[in-house]
């Protein structure tokens, strides 16, 4: 059945609105992904305040300034699982099947679900930037830097949400989606989110060198510490977009597989 583009957009907006409201109606679900990154930032500012003078660290006034990008990325990664978990819940409780029975665009079911967590990702980035501002943590790139980091938060949440949606569509289990959470945690820690790659050694350094999260974080960090540059903007925005394209393709493929199996 061919659907008019206007109908598809209307369905997408309706489903996006539903997923966004669902996130904000469950503070217990989103609270930890706002509180824990700020807690770790506060912890790190006391624990590693003397580490910033070590060789390999960029010139920063405080560890908090250094870890701003890591805090934003950490929060966004953790928060982005909620959208995919909600998609799995829709499959579990039969709402997904009811949507399929209705004349609804198939892709809007997926993108509608991801819209909520993506908006939340952008909002998280903004909250972290504003929360650390009173502690002297600024973005040297100015307004362009702030906007870029918020947009990066939005796109990263979408990219990770799409990746997690593959698990949701494959298993139809919210528990399985939540079970992949430690993988994100490992990827984050095996990157330069909390310490520079220059201070690492051996296998850890090699993994961090290959980990795309390292380059995303370093782009945001450069905007925060050094100011605007083409490399920093590319790392901040192009890498998440590239990952989003790849993970969206995977999610759409898994959606087709699920629909074909019905």
């Amino acid at each position: 059945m061919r659907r008019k583009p206007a109908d598809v957009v209307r369905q997408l907006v309706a489903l996006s609105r539903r997923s966004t409201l669902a996130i904000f109606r469950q503070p217990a679900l989103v609270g930890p992904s706002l509180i824990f990154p700020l807690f770790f930032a506060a912890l790190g500012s006391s624990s590693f305040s003397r580490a910033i003078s070590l060789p390999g660290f960029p010139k920063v006034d405080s560890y908090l300034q250094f870890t701003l990008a890591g805090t934003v990325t950490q929060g966004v990664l953790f928060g982005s699982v909620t959208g995919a978990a909600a998609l799995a819940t829709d499959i579990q409780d039969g709402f997904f099947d009811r949507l399929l029975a209705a004349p609804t665009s198939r892709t809007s079911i997926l993108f509608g679900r991801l819209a909520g967590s993506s908006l939340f990702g952008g909002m998280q980035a903004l909250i972290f930037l504003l929360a650390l501002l009173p502690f002297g943590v600024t973005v040297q790139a100015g307004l362009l830097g702030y906007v870029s980091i918020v947009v990066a938060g939005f796109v990263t949440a979408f990219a990770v949400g799409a990746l997690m949606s593959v698990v949701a569509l494959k298993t139809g289990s919210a528990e399985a989606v939540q079970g992949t959470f430690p993988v994100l945690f490992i990827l984050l820690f095996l990157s330069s989110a909390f310490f520079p790659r220059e201070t690492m050694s051996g296998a850890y350094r090699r993994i961090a060198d290959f980990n795309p999260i390292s380059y995303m974080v370093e782009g945001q960090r450069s905007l925060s510490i050094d100011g605007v540059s083409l490399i920093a903007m590319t790392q901040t925005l192009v890498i998440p977009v590239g990952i989003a394209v790849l993970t969206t393709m995977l999610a759409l493929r898994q959606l087709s597989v699920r629909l074909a199996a019905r």
Partner: protein
Amino acid sequence: MSTSRSVGILATRSIRNIRRLPSAFFPALAMPIFNMVVFAGTFFAVTKIPGFPTDRSINWYMPLGIMMGSAFAGVGLGFTAIRDIETGFYDRLRMTPTSRLSLVLGPLTGTLVRVVMMTTIVIVIGIALGARFTGGVLGILCLYAAALGLSTIGAGWGLGLAFIFKDMRGAAIMQLSIFLVMFLSSAQVPLNVMDGWLHTVARINPATNILRLARVGLVNESNADHLSFNAVWGGIVAIVVMGGLSLGFALRQLRKLSN
């Protein structure tokens, strides 16, 4: 039935669950290994900070991984108690001629066996990754003592909360409280390296003393904490006092549950 026999039976049941429910045991084993590996790798350079007590990051973070694993193994007993309460198994236990003390000590014994297994495996992996016990056998014994002590404290706390809440609401408080106590200590860096508010909090946090006990056999031989009585007694006092309080809390809440 005597208390010791009941303790033995309940401990055996807890240990058998490792084979019957490996999905519950392996995450508890994976977490300390994961913590050790990622912390030692990410914060590799932290040992270069002047005054840091060891020149191997794995020596500092292996005890942290084990302590986190032990604390969560302890509160995990609270999760098991909640499941037993919800399924009605606890009511059946309370109807048997079993002493209330054995309902706490039995599962606790099983948990301590699990903690010994977990600690041994993490130490073996840690040594394979470069950890070195500068304090020899005594240092290893201190690490085991700290692990067993912390899991006892966690178990008492977890059981007490399980008997109060009787459902999974208690689980979130168990995890969050242990998480905060562990991280608001010298978990990441020693007291002499940290600054600001965390130094004030960590100095009065009993977990700092227990971590100090765990690390006495892993710091450099030139460090003042190396196998020193000063570094050991605070941890032992913390374990005895906090362990006594938490087990007392668990027994008190169990009696209230029975009434």
